[in-house]
């Protein structure tokens, strides 16, 4: 046997780094250069965020020089462009929350049901056909949904609820909910399908039915994925613009009643953008203040999503 040991090391030739093994400077340089390029590309996304925050904050800063933050947060009227301006974000916030809530009441149960159905009940053939169909539904431009809400859904609702106004948060919210079903169902289904089969087999082997397996085993196992699907749905609803702009009424009403018309934060921004406000006017700044509020809302949603994902990380 010829085991080299530290004792015999002295008799071996001295330690060398062969020429072949020396780092080749050129190759090393090229690799570093490419890495820098790729890193540059990756930083663009950070620059985008910086850009968004910078634009929103700097314009809002001027806004808050004129408007005290306190009245922005507590005033119940939002009329920044009128002779007697009020700058209370509450009406827009109420509109945003109400439409989002209606949308979620539609999208979360339906989206979850569809996800469970596709992932646990439907035959693979059905799933292969239906899933792309749902994805198509998610690809329809929201402006199209907006007119669908205005010309089809709201008139139908008016037949059911006499006296319902022609623009209302209910109709806009319902259609928005339908529009975000695909996001919720598709992501939730992905999460459930990622649950390994052996988990399901465990339940089936105990004599569980499909529904029991889905509700008691698959859903808990996929919890973090399902929660992020919901969070994505919520942030879509909060930021959705064209449906509410077209169908919810563009009226900054401080109300949580979905039968009324109202304006959301995003709808206010397009409304103003439809006109033209000069750089520097309080009106121009007001859309950035509104945008900042919107951004903060979605940002905190994302944060919640992040925490939830961490907390309920799948441990299959």
């Amino acid at each position, binding site marked *: 046997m010829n085991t080299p040991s530290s004792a015999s090391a002295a008799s071996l030739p001295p330690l060398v780094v062969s020429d072949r093994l020396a780092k080749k400077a050129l190759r090393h340089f090229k690799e570093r250069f490419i890495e820098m390029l790729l890193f540059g590309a990756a930083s663009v996304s950070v620059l985008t965020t910086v850009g968004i925050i910078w634009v929103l904050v700097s314009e809002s800063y001027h806004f808050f020089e004129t408007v005290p933050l306190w009245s922005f947060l507590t005033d119940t*009227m*939002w*009329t920044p*462009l*009128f*002779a*007697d*301006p*009020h700058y209370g974000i509450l009406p827009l916030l109420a509109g945003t929350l109400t439409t989002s809530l209606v949308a979620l009441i539609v999208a979360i149960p339906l989206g979850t049901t569809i996800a469970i159905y596709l992932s646990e009940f439907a035959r693979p053939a059905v799933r292969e056909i239906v899933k792309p169909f749902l994805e198509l539904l998610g690809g329809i431009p929201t402006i199209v949904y907006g007119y669908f809400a*205005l010309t089809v859904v*709201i*008139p139908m609702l*008016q037949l059911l609820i006499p006296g319902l*106004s*022609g*623009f209302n948060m209910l109709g806009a919210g319902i259609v928005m909910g339908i529009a975000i079903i695909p996001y919720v169902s598709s992501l939730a289904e992905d999460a459930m399908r990622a649950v390994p089969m052996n988990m399901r087999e465990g339940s089936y082997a105990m004599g569980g039915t499909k529904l029991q397996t889905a509700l008691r085993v698959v859903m808990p196992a996929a919890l973090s994925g399902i929660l992020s699907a919901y969070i994505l749905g919520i942030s879509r609803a909060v930021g959705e613009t064209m449906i509410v702009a*077209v169908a919810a*009424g*563009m*009226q*900054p*009403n401080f109300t949580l009643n979905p039968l009324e*018309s109202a304006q959301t934060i995003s709808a206010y921004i397009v*409304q*103003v953008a*439809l*006109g*033209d*406000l*000069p750089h520097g006017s309080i*009106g121009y700044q007001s859309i950035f203040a509104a945008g900042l509020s919107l951004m903060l809302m979605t940002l905190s949603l994302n944060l919640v999503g992040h925490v939830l994902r961490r907390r309920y990380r799948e441990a299959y």
Partner: protein
Amino acid sequence: ASVVKVDGSSTVFPVTEAVAEDFQKSMKGAVQVTVGISGTGGGFKKFCRGEIDVADASRPILKKEMEACAQAGIKYVELPVAFDALTVVINPKNAFIKQLTVEQLKKMWEPDAQGKITSWKQVDASFPDAPLKLFGAGSDSGTFDYFTEAVVGKAKSSRGDYTASEDDNVLVQGVSRDVNAIGYFGYAYYAENQGKLKAVSIVNKQGTAVQPAPAAVLDGSYNPLSRPIFIYVSEKSLEKQEVRDFVTYYMKNASKLATEVKYVPLPAKAYETALEHVSKKKLGTVFGGEAEIGVTIESLLAREAKL
């Protein structure tokens, strides 16, 4: 290709669009015309920043805008295009309104009404206790400026809690679907949607209730809601051949095209005068930056002639 940039009033847009379309055809595509819709105020802001050649306006230029233009060294020629009847509309199923006075309109729309006047009964005791649903022009529009001036007495002075849209069709939709709704916008939008809307007769200075209609505009009886509409052309842009061509074409065809899009054209004389102003570079406005109410066609002609 050379480009003519127009932006501004949504009221004037139909006329300018028609002109732009025909003009581009007559030039066989050698000139490109873009027509934006930013509202009269928005249009003037761009105009005074030198971003556009022509501003569409549904009211004369205001003091503040004149100053902004002066500061930027922008001079302009003012060209009246047609007359419009600002129309107050209600839902066809509304049975209790036959006519409205300016007083009543003011009660509904003044800033003090915000959050307080929410029922028809508060506007007039004889009206039922039904919710008052208001639809009106957005604050960046000339229509808004003119209506508030005419009704409330001060431009831009309005309550804020109503459905405000730069998009007049949204207003049409809103009023046509709600029995208790009332709204206002340019006559053209009413004329196109007579089936879905009812125009309210407005009691004029002389005390008679008048329906909006071309004839009533011509004879001056539909007041105070008749108003002239304009285009403003920048002096600097007039140095460009294509802008001169466009404006000339505009004035030559305004009468025909305004009628086509349901406005009341001016007498031929008015367009000739306007062209003269262009060629002689007669700059400035004849309104002195004041929002004037109840300008009739005759008085407009008289002023133009004096410039």
